[in-house]
């Protein structure tokens, strides 16, 4: 006895459920528009607090602050895409600046070269630790920062004793301007770095591998990507980016000490995060990070003019980091 009821499958499985179009959704396709909006709002607010800020000079100041953050954050972006992070990048920057400044008497080119070498070395070591020995990036880079600080506090009065004055070339590049004092030379450096990183991420196999590793290490391995090679290269690159930022700051300040860049570590992470790079890897763009850095630059000016105590400053800073990244994930998921 078979009592059967059969309904023909009316609509095929491939049609998709209807959805109400929403603003969030339209923004979601271009989440960076939101960051641009935030940036504009911050600029306006700052302008209201300090009218003179809305001038070439005023805006340039924010840019000047954003530049080193943007370059450090480039390193963070590359590594976050692989699911990593570099907590030693600020110390690497400091160390490079210290070496360059100290070696300046031996010739500008040489000094800069060894400065960059410091970043290359420290970065590669990070890469080996993470890529070959599978040390958690957080720990590896944290330890690297401690090691570098220890070494250089020792060396500051021994092998690197003496001058801490940055050479004039870096002073100009780091602090000087051109085009009637309107455009900082450092901005040109940042432009170069930005173009390189954007190209790397969008137009090269290396970039593809970064995204792949961060998105799914197993799949990457099975399709023949050798993680350790990519990671060593990425961390080394991040180290060099750190050195560049360090040299710029050193040049801007004119003299270096071992606290030179330290306080830019968390901002560099924040910039990447605000820019929508996922700390778990696989998702993110440098263009977003650039906006993140600019936002932090304007924020710095805003806080200066507010003359707010550090208490207020830090609360504001933290809230903005959380707020923006929250909004970003919202938009991303709305898509």
């Amino acid at each position, binding site marked *: 006895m078979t009592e059967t009821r059969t309904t023909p499958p009316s609509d095929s499985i491939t049609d998709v459920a209807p959805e109400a179009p929403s603003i969030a959704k339209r923004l979601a396709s271009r989440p960076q528009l939101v960051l641009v909006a935030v940036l504009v709002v911050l600029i306006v607010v700052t302008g209201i607090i300090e009218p003179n800020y809305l001038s070439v000079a005023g805006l340039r100041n924010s840019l000047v602050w954003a530049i080193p953050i943007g370059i450090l954050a480039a390193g963070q972006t590359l590594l976050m895409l692989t699911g990593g992070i570099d907590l030693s990048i600020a110390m690497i920057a400091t160390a490079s600046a210290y070496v360059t400044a100290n070696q300046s008497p031996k010739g500008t080119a040489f000094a800069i070269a060894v400065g960059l070498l410091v970043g290359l070395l420290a970065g590669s070591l990070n890469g080996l630790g993470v890529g070959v020995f599978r040390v958690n990036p957080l720990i590896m880079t944290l330890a690297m920062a401690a090691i570098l600080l220890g070494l250089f506090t020792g060396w500051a009065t021994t092998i690197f004793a003496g001058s801490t004055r940055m050479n004039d070339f870096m002073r100009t590049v780091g602090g000087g301007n051109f085009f009637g004092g309107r455009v900082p030379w450092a901005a040109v450096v940042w432009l170069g770095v930005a173009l390189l990183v954007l190209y790397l991420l969008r137009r090269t196999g290396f970039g593809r591998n970064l995204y792949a590793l961060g998105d*799914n290490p197993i799949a*990457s391995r099975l399709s023949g990507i050798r993680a350790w090679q990519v990671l060593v290269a990425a961390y080394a690159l991040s180290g060099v980016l750190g050195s560049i930022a360090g040299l710029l700051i050193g040049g801007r300040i004119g003299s270096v000490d071992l606290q030179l860049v330290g306080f830019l570590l968390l901002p560099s992470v924040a910039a990447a995060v605000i820019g929508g790079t996922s700390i778990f890897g696989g*998702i993110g763009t440098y263009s977003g990070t650039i906006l993140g850095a600019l936002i932090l630059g304007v924020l710095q000016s805003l806080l200066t003019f507010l003359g707010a105590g550090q208490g207020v400053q830090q609360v504001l800073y933290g809230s903005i980091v959380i707020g923006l990244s929250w909004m970003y994930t919202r938009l991303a998921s709305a898509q």
Partner: protein
Amino acid sequence: MSDTPNSVLTAKGIAKNYGPVVALRSVDLSVEPGEIHALLGANGAGKSTFVKVLAGVIHQDAGTNHINGDPVSFKMPNEAAEAGIATVFQDPALIPDLSLDQNLTISGLQHRDVEPWLERLKLANYDFGLLARDVPLATRRLIDLARALALDPQLLMLDEITAALTPEQADLVFDVMREWKRMNRSVLFISHRLGEVLSICDVATILRNGRDVANFSLDGVEESELVAAMLGEALAGAAPAADSGLTSSVADDTDVVLKAIDLDFRGKVNGISFDLRRGEVLGLTALEGQGQDELFALLSGDHRPNTGEIIVNGEPMVARSPYDAIRKGLVFVPADRQEALLPQRSVRENLAMPLYNRIERWFNLRRDEGKRVGAAIERLDIDTRAASQVQRLSGGNRQKVTIGRWLVEDFEVLLCFDPTRGIDIQTKTQIYELLREVAAGGASVLIYSSELREIPLVCDRVLVMYDGAIVHEQPAATATEEILLTAAHGLEVVSS
């Protein structure tokens, strides 16, 4: 169908979308006391989704549920349990890093609650101090079951529990189900093994494309009727048949591309040797956990053999990582899509991955990338409406991407591990045709399949593994299901 007032469970018009994916359109189903109710359907039909709705894991977008006539809507699985519904889900529900005992605590049970059932399942005094991750899959499924039974549910839902079990273990489960029936309680049973369904179930509801399209009482029903109902008239024809002329036998004198010699690996692979000839599709089958996973791991360069050699085109292969195997032309399609895909990246990036695994290719993108990727998409006709993120593709399309990846470059041997798992009948046919094409094009294929009846449809020759060794070999054309099954259980095959 009759939903008498004393129905244990009455579901009406259950619908569920995952974002744009329509998993369930509208499902009605009622389970009577003392009934073993089969829920059947092709992959992706919505069975698990339906079970998850009933169990309170997810919430229906529409439709109502009644338990013994009272409307219910659970927020958490444990609420369903309290209401008398216990479920063994398709995906394992034990916490890997907790001991089995702690896993019981988590679900609010003590060891003595499950004791009697463990006995029934031949797991009496099994060591519950073990971490769940160290327990074999089959055992975990049985413990899942014992845990469900300990809740003493009125309705027991089993989603593909037998898939991972040996026949003996499956029989233990059937005994329990029969007992449940004797106690005038009910079971909702999901399985793709129609044989066991017919032997143990009373009633079957069949899902297709998220709808319940048929409801049988199962006495005197033929498998073919079920299949027809599952596939729908439209697709029934598409089912590949032995005479579809896919297979082509390869002359013995053609050159050997891949040669395995006495491979040993961690006691899982014991002295395996075989040849794979150019243009050949070599089938491999076995029960769960006979070392086939390890064998493929060795061939794909993911592991290195303890002893023995892998020879590719006459040269020995020593692989430090899959990269080396790929360079030698051995490319691997894993069973688990999660292991093969970049869920957040585009179809294009997923397909193009192997193009950039060499440092010399790091510094730019291949100019012909678009062309190669396009060709692969065409060849597999991948549905690219959701191409911006592979995780939005349908399961089958995701599966196609895992294969398509290797079509963007040349290779010698395609290693496929159960490439048709979780795939509908149409996609299966497409994939089998593709494999034949590949072979015809001069490459070779080694394919592991757990679906015995499909072996003859695509293979030239078939090997059977048991306990880490190859116990049987024969031409696929003549490999009947029961020959393979006998061999797979390590039994002597009476020469046919």
